[in-house]
């Protein structure tokens, strides 16, 4: 999949963002422009502090930029009111965080049901759909358990189920493999690849983990608040054991 065949879902034009004031003021994003397309995995890569997460937050509408424009599914998120932005995020974006951010005091099915509850679904219906989402990541049998009983990889799979349960057209992932070992990281990435195969959905991943770059359809490399390089790359099949494990997880 590439930019010629996929629908454009995110457009970032000449965005600037500063943090702090006076001598400690940091120019976090410098005239950044970027596009993301449906059906692809876009990775924002680069060293720590280069502005990847700031750009991701701006695209997600959780951070205001000072200048420039950000359109997501044709909506100008840079100009939306906070309340509208909140509703927009609930309807269009699935989030996967580096630290998972699963609520430890409720079961994993209830965690997964949260985006549905935010959108006003009834609890029973939301939990039913959450259980189905957990099935799809291979954790259907453990839906009653609490997050802290799961391994890091399993928690990230729960977070993926949470991000996808309401079928958002844009999935945003911040360092999804940072807290995982290599094997779990690759299993999780294979799940992302399955997600991105949907022609109506785009996945944007922020990472500096070069082990997973091969999963990207496009890589935008950042440094010091700027995008210095954008490369398209052919999709490759993952190592055999990962494919088997992901398949087993999906069909469990």
């Amino acid at each position, binding site marked *: 999949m590439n930019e010629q065949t996929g629908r454009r879902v995110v457009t970032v034009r000449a965005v600037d963002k500063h943090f702090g004031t006076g001598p400690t003021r940091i120019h976090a994003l410098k005239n950044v422009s970027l596009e993301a397309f449906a059906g692809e995995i876009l990775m924002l890569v680069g060293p720590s502090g280069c502005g990847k997460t700031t750009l991701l937050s701006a695209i997600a509408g959780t951070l205001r930029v000072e200048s420039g424009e950000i359109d997501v599914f044709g909506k100008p998120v840079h100009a939306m009111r906070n309340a509208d932005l909140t509703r927009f995020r609930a309807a269009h974006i699935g989030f996967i*965080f*580096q630290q998972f951010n699963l609520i430890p005091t409720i079961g994993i099915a209830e965690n997964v049901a949260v985006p549905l509850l935010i959108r006003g679904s009834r609890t029973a219906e939301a939990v039913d759909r959450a259980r189905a989402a957990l099935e799809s990541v291979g954790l259907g049998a453990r839906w009653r358990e609490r997050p802290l009983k799961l391994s890091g990889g399993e928690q990230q799979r729960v977070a993926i189920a949470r991000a996808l349960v309401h079928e958002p057209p844009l999935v945003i992932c911040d360092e999804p493999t940072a807290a995982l070992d290599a094997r779990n990281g690759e299993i999780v990435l294979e799940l992302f690849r399955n997600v991105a195969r949907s022609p109506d959905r785009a996945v944007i991943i922020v990472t500096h983990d070069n082990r997973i770059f091969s999963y990207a359809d496009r890589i935008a490399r950042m440094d010091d608040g700027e995008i210095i390089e954008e490369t398209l790359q052919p999709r490759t099949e993952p190592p055999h054991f990962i494919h088997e494990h992901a398949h087993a997880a999906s069909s469990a």
Partner: protein
Amino acid sequence: MLRLALKMLFGDTAKYLMLVVGLFFATFLIVQQASVFCGLMSWTTSTLSNVGAPIFVVEERVEQINETNPLRDTDVARVRSVAGVKWAMPLYSGIQRVRLDDGSYKTVQLLGIDSASLAGSPGRMIEGNIEDLRLPNTVIIDELAVTRLARSPDRPIRVGDRFEINDIEARVVGICDAKRSFTGGPYVWTTYERALQYTPASRKMLSAVIAASADGLTPSQAAVEISQTTGLRAFVNEGFGDNPNDFNTSTIWWYVRNTGIPVSFGTTVIIGLIVGIAISCQTFYAFVLDNIRHLGALKAMGMSNPRLSLILLIQSATVGMIGFGIGLLVCSGFAYIAIQNQQPPFMMPWQIPVAAFGIIQTICFIAALLGIIRLSAYEPAMVFRA
């Protein structure tokens, strides 16, 4: 959303229990101390309840029932002469010492009532006959006296037993139900004339004149007429309220103004309040801080600030209700024991739990508000930071 809020709350067992314990403690202190205070204040007006007359006429400077500025015996006739008075009788009220068989002494609240009408006699007799008070050297005692004036722990005082009041014999002819006195001594009824014999002589012995209003007049109207005609102070006996001419109201306010009792109890109530606020606000705020990343994640995922605030309000109100409920339940247990033992004084008018519930919910609201302020300032982008 309600379920999610409650599960988040109950799931953090340590903080949840801490919150409940803090609010339970605050509720218990507030309700128990306020009720004991009300009970103590109600004891100050026991004589008014036990005598039960609708009008009490006393010396003009008297402000409360336990203060006695004696009147002249002729004042009874002066009150009777007022047109608005149906009847007026003498009343003696004073603390006297009783000598028991073993030689020990106990103080009692001696009441002397008119022997002909027996106006001011106990409202309910448990044993014996009120008419027997007209027999020589007889008294009627209240239930408290049964144990307080007992010959030994195994031998409570009974009808027919004798003791001495200031070296003069008193024979028990009845036991009655009476409200306990503020001084802690039991009530002993006798006739007015005999009360004067039991009491060391002085020039004026009449404590008060009890009266009733004539038909067609309210006690308040009759009291005004008595005061205007005789120059004495006439109080009505209707119960604590906002009527400054009610003897209960006047008595209780006198104790509030002139003793350290309200300050003492008030201090404990305020401590309860401070402890409640400190524990609850601190713990709830810590609960919010512990969950700030998760709440921030909810915010990032599209949960609005009002809905997040509602979650915190539901959580705080829930712990408030549970803490209040347990506090009130334990306080009821305390009340049961207090009422069984007739001490410490305990009276819980409905205003106390209602006010305590309001206070506890206010504490919880403040606690939730602190969390809401913190959460409102939390940028959803923060959840992307490791």
